[in-house]
């Protein structure tokens, strides 16, 4: 049984560009949460999707947006990239609000 799959694993983008990160949840999980982890810091909650709707959102600007598809997979989009957006982006899936399983993350570098 595959766990949470994130793609790509690494990505380099230029300031001002847009990026899309993808997440396939663990089988049986219907909720997807996204986290941003800067180097040396703990993960910061971006938003959570359930039934294709954004259910909760952390303190992130509107440049960060997402989507959940009918098969529960999810995308994170970041527009107008800043150097400060460089981080590890983690996706976590869960069957509801508990029992999180994390993916290995996407390392985004903005130059």
């Amino acid at each position: 049984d595959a766990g949470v799959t994130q793609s790509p694993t690494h990505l380099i983008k230029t300031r001002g560009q847009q990026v899309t990160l993808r997440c396939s949840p663990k089988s049986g999980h219907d909720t997807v949460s996204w986290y941003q982890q800067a180097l040396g810091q703990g993960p910061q909650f971006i938003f959570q999707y359930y039934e294709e709707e954004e259910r909760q959102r952390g303190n992130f600007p509107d440049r960060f947006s997402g989507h959940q598809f009918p098969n529960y997979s999810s995308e994170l989009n970041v527009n107008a990239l800043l150097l400060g957006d460089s981080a590890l982006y983690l996706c976590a899936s869960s069957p509801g609000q508990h029992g999180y399983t994390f993916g290995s993350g996407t390392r985004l570098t903005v130059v």
Partner: protein
Amino acid sequence: SQQGEEDPQALSIQEGENATMNCSYKTSINNLQWYRQNSGRGLVHLILIRSNEREKHSGRLRVTLDTSKKSSSLLITASRAADTASYFCATPISGNTPLVFGKGTRLSVIA
């Protein structure tokens, strides 16, 4: 914002020794979770302790929770080099909100 705050920020011990990490949090919780992260990769769930529990064991892991002091500790007994990782505590701020993580403790176990 950070809910949990781990202490110490970094810990270096010899293989075979015990490692203790502490977590303090700010608001009332219904559970507290500990995660491990190897080399900036995905987070692995270690153990969950509910607010009505005081101590929980899982293999070489022992977690305690003191709700009166709003603190928790993670003890790893007989540490191994493979335990080298960052350890995070995480709590939902209230009810069904997503997890909020601390900044983590970086543990180095020297063989």
